[in-house]
């Protein structure tokens, strides 16, 4: 499985992504420069973290206009898998591929630590190897990771099983104290409806699960 890792001016987690993906048996990853216009030959796309375009205007707002983002949008629209991490999540929201937006952390501080997440749905291609309610402990690092969406959007995300992980404590409780940035409903990760398992193209479903 071949991953494209998009590289914007200001991306700084792109090398980590390539390193991590190349460590998965059967997977390989290559950088794709933001001025490129094609994703031909790639099976999945990762939009990595960092500070694309210096976070000017709003995080991810300028990156949305990069030539490669047109290809990423078409790729996603045709059912391709796109994963946005950190600034990549912001870019996907700004591009309209995901609902909502990310704003400044509630506590104003840049948060860099290990954080517990509870798996809310295993109904997506991103979380199908996990079990519902499983508590993961992963590193987080962001200054603008407070997820915001209006009530109607939140209701739709909940109803459609699009909320994949929420911030929680060691026991899996989604308390206010365990919310590192003020995200609404402790939301840490979402997907769009195309990434829910029933809609996943067979091509994707037949791939071996990354371990």
């Amino acid at each position: 499985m071949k991953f494209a890792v998009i590289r914007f001016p200001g991306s700084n987690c792109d090398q980590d992504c390539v390193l991590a993906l190349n460590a998965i048996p059967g997977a390989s990853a290559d950088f794709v420069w933001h001025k490129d216009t094609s994703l031909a030959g790639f099976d999945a796309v990762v939009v990595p973290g960092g500070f694309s375009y210096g976070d000017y205007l709003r995080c991810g707002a300028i990156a949305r206009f990069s030539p490669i983002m047109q290809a990423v949008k078409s790729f996603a629209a045709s059912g391709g898998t796109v994963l946005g991490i950190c600034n990549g999540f912001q870019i996907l929201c700004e591009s309209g591929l995901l609902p909502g937006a990310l704003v400044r952390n509630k506590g104003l501080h840049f948060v860099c630590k290990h954080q517990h997440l509870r798996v809310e749905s295993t109904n997506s291609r991103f979380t199908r190897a996990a079990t519902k309610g499983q508590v993961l402990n992963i590193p987080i690092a962001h200054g603008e990771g407070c997820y915001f969406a209006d009530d109607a959007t939140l209701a739709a995300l909940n109803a459609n099983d699009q909320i994949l992980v929420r911030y929680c404590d060691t026991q899996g409780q989604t308390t206010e104290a365990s919310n590192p940035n003020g995200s609404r409903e402790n939301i840490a990760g979402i997907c769009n409806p195309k990434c829910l398992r029933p809609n996943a193209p067979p091509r994707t479903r037949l791939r071996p699960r990354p371990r």
Partner: protein
Amino acid sequence: MFEPIGNETLRTMKILVNVMPKPSVLDPQGAAAAEALKHLGLAGVGRVRIGKIVEIELPDNTEESEIHRAARELLSNPVIEDYSITK
């Protein structure tokens, strides 16, 4: 302001796009500034919100709808921000 373009002159205008976080969105910067204003000794400080102003030079004959399009699709994010336009 007149800028010669070829044999013609083009009148330009400055417009201000004021972008503010929606009332329902957390504005921790505003909250921090409110605290600082109290420390400064300013009496009766209420809610403080921090937004931004974008000043753009444009040809005088730019369609109003085009300015709104720019404000809506790039300069603000309608999910979290409201905008207004001052000419």
